[in-house]
């Protein structure tokens, strides 16, 4: 149905014409009653915002950064931006522990690299953001506080013609939204997606998951994450399916609220990063589960981290008695660069598990285990969705057959055109229409299995972290030898995600000096909102260098994990 529309706005508007009373979004608040938006009142509010934006000088094609906490008016503000043909870009509201200077640095970098035109945020951030507007190099033209417009809005006649005129200057190939792929401190890469890319993706992915009018989507993920924004916000909104939006901060403090929302709203679908399966299984109290019914759920889709069989088993064993069905444990492979999904497991069937030989897998060969104790279970992310192609490539660029491990390359109708203002980075990953994902995986019986990253990116709870960001901040810690640091991820089977570890060279020798140094290194990580779980302090010249002369992350990770050297302070 989405293919008959040129713009995503047209799709939303059509729902208002056909069924304005249909429920569009249920805004969930664990401390109060949910607020229920219908298509009719959602678009009415969005048009008021659009009118305000035009008065402020926002034009079609302008990039509008949205930095707001969980708020029921987030949705009409986002849609109001789209109503005039401007481009919404959802950014994370700064976590309280993120150092203000780091937030400013990150936003400043993003403003320059992503070309942000306007910032829409809350009054609390005014002082932090305003210096960016004064900065001559900044592209940011102004800062607004749209939540205040809503509270002080006087009834007035909206200039629909002007809003429509502004929107009509763009076509289906025009940028619709901007999302940031990954990164922590301004190194984020901006992905611009056109109306066409988003609408085409909605059509294809909704078919892959057999989405119907009977469905109801529940989401705790932040909307600056592609999984939250595309899968759990845009897809249902475009298709006339209600979504329940939870506060991510509330969810991590009280994970039970996801189950309360599922049970009360009879939700059918949700997307979760792998760590969330462990988190829910380990952290939801049995007493809290009283009266919870999860039997309405037809799919829990595991995505955005390596899918781990232990996590699925743990989740199923814990919540089977509350109605979780084995066949609801699904998986998907997705990324911002392809709008969202690339592959998806078959709805109604549990994601396939494949037991392989761990040693052979290290040699990039997929085969059954030769001896007991060598088993590794890999979980399928399913088959490519329509108009999406994958290939597995070796280090020489040669395409590999089934059961051989290599780098994952993707071609898709919903592929991005490139990172905004980053032609060099784009040319490194986009060649002849194929996108080099940086992931490692294999093909088996027509299904793709993603088993890790080909580079050093650390994935913690679905969030990509560049090790160089951590190394940069630790580099400034007094007591650490500059340039003699490596950061890397270590798989944590208990939590179902990765922990961040740091090895740093120091001349400090005894525990009296080392203990506070370890603490300072962990605090440096906090400044960029990264939790460093383990700090290894090693003597000078301990780190192994790579051929480039820099300390090698891979070699030093192996060394520290394999050799439990006594002199190391852990």
């Amino acid at each position, binding site marked *: 149905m989405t293919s008959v529309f040129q713009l995503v706005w047209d799709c939303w508007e059509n729902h208002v014409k056909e069924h304005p009373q249909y429920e569009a979004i249920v805004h969930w608040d664990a401390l109060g009653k949910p607020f229920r938006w219908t298509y009719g009142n959602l678009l009415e509010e969005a048009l008021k915002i659009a009118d305000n934006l035009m008065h402020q000088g926002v034009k079609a094609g302008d990039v509008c950064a949205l930095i707001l906490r969980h708020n029921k008016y987030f949705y009409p503000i986002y849609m109001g931006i789209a109503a005039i043909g401007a481009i919404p870009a959802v950014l994370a509201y700064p976590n309280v522990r993120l150092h203000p200077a780091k937030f400013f640095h990150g936003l400043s970098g993003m403003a320059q690299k992503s070309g942000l035109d306007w910032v829409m945020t809350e009054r609390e951030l005014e002082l932090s953001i305003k210096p960016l507007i004064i900065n001559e190099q900044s592209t940011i033209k102004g800062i607004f506080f749209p939540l205040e417009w809503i509270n002080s809005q006087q009834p007035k006649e909206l200039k629909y013609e002007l809003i429509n005129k502004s929107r009509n200057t763009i076509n289906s190939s025009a940028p619709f939204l901007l999302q940031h792929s990954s990164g922590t401190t301004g190194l984020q890469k901006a992905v611009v997606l056109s109306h066409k890319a988003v609408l085409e993706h909605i059509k294809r992915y909704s078919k892959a998951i057999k989405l119907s009018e009977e469905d109801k989507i529940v989401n705790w993920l932040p909307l600056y994450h592609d999984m939250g924004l595309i899968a759990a916000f845009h897809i249902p909104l475009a298709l006339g399916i209600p979504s329940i939006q939870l506060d991510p901060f509330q969810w991590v403090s009280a994970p039970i609220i996801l189950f309360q929302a599922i049970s009360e709203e009879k939700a059918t679908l949700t997307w979760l990063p792998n760590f969330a399966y462990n988190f829910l299984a380990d952290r939801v109290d049995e007493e809290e589960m009283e009266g919870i019914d999860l039997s309405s759920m037809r799919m829990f889709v595991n995505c955005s981290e390596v899918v781990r069989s232990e996590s699925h088993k743990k989740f199923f064993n814990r919540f089977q008695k509350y109605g979780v069905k084995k066949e609801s444990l699904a998986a998907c492979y997705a990324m911002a660069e392809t709008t969202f999904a690339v592959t998806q497991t078959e709805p109604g069937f549990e994601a396939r598990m494949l037991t392989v030989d761990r040693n052979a897998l290290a040699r990039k060969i997929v085969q059954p285990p030769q001896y007991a104790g060598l088993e590794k279970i890999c979980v399928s992310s399913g088959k490519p969705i329509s108009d999406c192609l994958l290939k597995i490539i070796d280090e020489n660029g040669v395409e590999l057959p089934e059961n051989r491990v290599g780098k994952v390359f993707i071609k898709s109708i919903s592929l991005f055109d490139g990172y905004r203002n980053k032609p060099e980075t784009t040319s490194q990953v986009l060649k002849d229409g194929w996108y080099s994902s940086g992931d490692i995986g294999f093909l088996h019986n027509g299904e793709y299995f993603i088993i890790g990253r080909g580079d050093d990116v650390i994935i913690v709870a679905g969030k990509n972290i560049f090790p160089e960001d951590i190394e940069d901040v630790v580099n400034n810690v007094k007591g650490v030898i500059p340039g003699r640091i490596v950061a890397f991820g270590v798989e944590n089977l208990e939590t179902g995600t990765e922990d961040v570890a740091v090895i740093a060279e120091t001349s400090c020798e005894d525990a009296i000096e080392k203990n506070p140094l370890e603490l300072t290194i962990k605090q440096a990580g*906090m400044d960029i909102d990264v939790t460093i*779980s383990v700090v290894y302090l090693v003597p000078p010249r301990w780190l192994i260098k790579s051929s480039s002369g820099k300390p090698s992350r891979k070699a030093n990770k192996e060394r520290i994990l394999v050799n439990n050297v006594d002199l190391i302070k852990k």
Partner: protein
Amino acid sequence: MISGRLKKVILKVLKLNSFDLYDETLAYQVPGWDSLSHVIILAAIEKEYGIHFRVAEVLRLRNLGDLQILINSKITNNNQG
């Protein structure tokens, strides 16, 4: 004032040798206390004191002083019950 017992539980979960904790201390000021470890810390406290936190109670906590007051009130209720 943050009791030695509560401090011990928190530092143990966060694998910290020592760190000063006050009533005004906010979770994000303690190394390693992030959104994910928050729930692990609360679970460890529940186990240590044999108490249970409700969702609304957890979401309303502002600082360590609030947490200590909540624990104290629950212990008192348990003793009275």
